[in-house]
């Protein structure tokens, strides 16, 4: 008979690389890979930020900047949207935070497949390089909109319809390969490598959010993958998956019989879950930040976990709410409006529980919590406007207007980004062993939080007026009052200010890394395992000779009768000062 050791019991020493290159370049340590993922994602994200500034300049001062032609504007819109959603947010939340936090929070030494994990990063880097290369191919990057709808994406009236779209599709396909390697790793690690005592219902919300988001990604990305391959074939060898017979710029094309709407179904079958691939990790992380800094357990933990799971499942049956006016069978509208509004219930519960966690807490308004509170505000806003767009007939006048631009930036642009900032401030002391500068952190929060609201609140009203999105310029139009120009200028000033304020953030992180005060190993008094490592920053293998054993859930804050206002997960029951396990 064979005997099995669980991964948690495996005591064989890890192979520690000796050289600098082995440690920091071809590294198989999940923490180093996480940093590699994060730095790459942030780097390419800065490109997207610069593009958004350029677009805003065009919208405020139409035609003032000679190189922003309509072609360039649409290329900027497309690259900005795609980079933000896929190459920044998805990569940073899963490849970055997922990699760093999963093994530490569940008490593992590393991911279960460290080599595949390393490969995942390098393939991701390749996808980023291919993506950036598209800025330099003949015709420039694709200007098809981040939704890449055919026929337009591959016909002549769209900038980058030749090389641009091909590099974009190739880059997406490569990204999906990278994601799949990473994703299988994260899911397997959560399922197989939890330390003794770490039951699923004792995992911190962060792990739950990342875990469910990973599974969504594994199920959703294949739809994008096949769509990308099919479009690539339509474009290169003349198949007609998505191409009916059309006349493009006076020239009849040889395609016939394909369906542009089929592409939209495939795209949004991926695209809607994608929203939650970004949102669920943010939900998880923000739950832990709120709980830790208000010294109170997350309110309704079980409900929070189930809400994440239910949202994840439902996110696969709401995709066509992006297609109410696409010309699909109009009877689908009833179903997708209903399923979409049902998803609002578990989502609302999450919001209530965040606020109820603060209620009767002992709230320490440190920078990470400020960002978390900012998130609650922007998420409430974006979530509520989602009820407009999900409710099919309310969507009709608003669809494809600036209301949509305002909505999705609030809900999946600003909200996750605020959580990411909060999370970076929250875990920075553990990751670097140093503390950031509080004044700069506060300044960064205030400018960013107030700034984004000034940017996006007015956009909803422009949408109510009827201003369409993806317009290079509005021109003279009767129904748009002159005051809209004025709004556009203010929005642009706010956007440039917010963009510039990020310099404070980077300066703070970089200078603190070298000159910051030495950080306490557990400066916030947090309960979850990543704060209980023997070394700060944690070293390769994370836990020294023995793995931690978990005795309680991750939220024993302010337990009555306990000496301290937190009891780490690895403190046994009945230890002096600790009372009985509440869950």
């Amino acid at each position, binding site marked *: 008979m064979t005997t099995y050791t669980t991964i948690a019991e495996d005591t064989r020493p890890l192979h520690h690389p000796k050289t600098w290159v082995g440690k920091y370049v071809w590294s198989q340590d999940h923490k180093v890979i996480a940093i590699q993922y994060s730095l790459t994602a942030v780097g390419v994200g800065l490109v997207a930020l610069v593009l958004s500034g350029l677009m805003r300049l065009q919208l405020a001062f139409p035609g003032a900047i000679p190189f922003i032609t309509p072609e360039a504007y649409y290329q900027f819109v497309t690259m900005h949207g795609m980079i933000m959603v896929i190459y920044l947010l998805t990569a940073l939340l899963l490849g970055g935070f997922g990699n760093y936090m999963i093994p530490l929070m569940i008490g593992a030494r590393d991911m279960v497949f460290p080599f595949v994990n390393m490969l995942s990063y390098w393939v991701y880097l390749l996808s980023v390089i291919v993506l950036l290369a598209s800025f330099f191919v003949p015709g420039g990057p694709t200007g098809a909109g981040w939704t890449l709808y055919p026929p337009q994406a591959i016909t002549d*009236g769209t900038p980058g319809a030749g090389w641009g779209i091909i590099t974009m599709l190739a880059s997406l396909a490569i990204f999906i390969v990278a994601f799949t390697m990473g994703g299988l790793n994260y899911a397997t690690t959560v399922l197989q490598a939890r330390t003794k005592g770490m039951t699923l219902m004792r995992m911190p919300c962060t792990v739950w959010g990342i875990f469910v988001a990973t599974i969504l990604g594994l199920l959703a990305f294949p739809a994008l993958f096949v769509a990308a391959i099919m479009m690539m074939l339509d474009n290169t060898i003349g198949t007609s998956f998505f191409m009916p017979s059309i006349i493009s710029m006076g020239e009849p094309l040889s395609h016939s019989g394909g369906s542009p709407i089929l592409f939209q179904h495939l795209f949004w079958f991926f695209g809607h879950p994608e929203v939650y691939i970004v949102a669920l990790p943010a939900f998880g992380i923000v739950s832990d930040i709120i709980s830790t800094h208000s010294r109170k357990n997350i309110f309704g933990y079980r409900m929070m976990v189930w809400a994440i799971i239910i949202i994840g499942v439902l996110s696969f049956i709401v995709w066509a709410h992006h297609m109410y006016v696409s*010309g699909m069978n109009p009877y689908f509208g009833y179903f997708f409006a209903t399923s979409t509004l049902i998803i609002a219930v578990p989502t609302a519960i999450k919001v209530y529980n965040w606020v109820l966690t603060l209620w*009767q807490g002992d*709230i320490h308004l440190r920078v990470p919590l400020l960002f978390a509170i900012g998130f609650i505000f922007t998420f409430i806003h974006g979530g509520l406007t989602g009820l407009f767009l999900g409710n099919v*007939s309310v969507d009709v006048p608003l669809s494809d207007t600036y209301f949509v631009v305002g909505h999705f930036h609030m809900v999946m642009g600003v909200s996750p980004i605020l959580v990411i900032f909060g999370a970076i401030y929250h875990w920075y002391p553990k990751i670097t062993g140093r503390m950031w500068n509080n004044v700069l952190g506060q300044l960064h929060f205030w400018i960013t939080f107030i700034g984004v609201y000034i940017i996006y609140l007015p956009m909803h009203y422009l949408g109510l007026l009827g201003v369409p999105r993806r317009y290079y310029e509005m021109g003279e139009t009767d*129904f748009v009052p002159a005051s809209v120009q004025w709004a556009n200028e203010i929005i642009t000033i706010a956007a440039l200010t917010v963009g510039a304020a990020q310099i404070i953030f980077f300066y703070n992180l970089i200078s603190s890394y070298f000159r910051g005060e030495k950080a306490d190993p557990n400066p916030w008094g947090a309960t979850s395992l990543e704060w209980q490592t023997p070394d700060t920053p944690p070293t390769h293998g994370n836990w020294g000779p023995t793995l931690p054993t978990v005795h309680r859930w991750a939220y024993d804050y302010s337990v009555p009768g306990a000496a301290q206002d937190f009891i780490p997960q690895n403190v046994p029951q009945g230890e002096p000062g600790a009372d009985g396990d509440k869950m």
Partner: protein
Amino acid sequence: MRVAVVIALLVIGSIAFHFLSPWWMTPIASNWGALDNALILTFWVCGAVFIALNLFLAYSIYRFRHREGSRATYEPENIGLERGLTFWTAVGIVLMLAPGLIAWNKYISVPDDAAILEARGQQWQWSFRFPGADGVLGASAVEHISADNPFGVNPGDPWGRDDIIVESSELHLPLNQPVKLLLTSTDVLHNFYVPQFRAKMDLVPGTTTYLWFTPTKKGTFEILCAEYCGVGHHAMRGYVVVESDADFNTWLSDFPTQSELAGPAAEIAAIE
């Protein structure tokens, strides 16, 4: 502390912005008041939730801010409260969903007396086709498109001969007459959108989509393309002029029929 005040101020600021800013839905000029009503209902329900939740958030932060010696309560869950909140949220959702679905039902059910006409999009202009005296649009396909047959009307289809071809981005419509627009495109996706009419639908090459509305106000309204269609997307404009029946008929009589455009030769060729 400060953040509690700012959250409250942002709520007040949003309300002030709503009432003071000059921007709101463009005055309606069609029968789609039902869409507006569903939107306004949603607006007030969501507005109330926005105010209530954020003020509660601000109050919680203020009231339970850390002070020397303060300690949080330990309360893992409160099933009763969570059930209650779930229930009332569901009630609110149903309240908004029901009128939305009812309005949608109207939106997709075209009345029998609606006049039919075709709106055609191509990069980056609009054109229109009326069915002529027989009231039926002839079959069409991109394969038939040529200089003297811009809509690709099938020359063999007798219903198509009296179709009136309007090669202009200006469409006239008679007041208070319901119209069903059949939407077609010869190249890429477009979207027929007139903000004052509220209705909106994509034009999809390879298939025909539709929308319907009744213009209820005289005047000139701008058509905007609302589905990205390439570099000229923002410039793909047209006009709808809503006027009396008499004016409309005079306008329409200026345009040629399909057979006038193509000449009898095309039809004879098709028959032989």
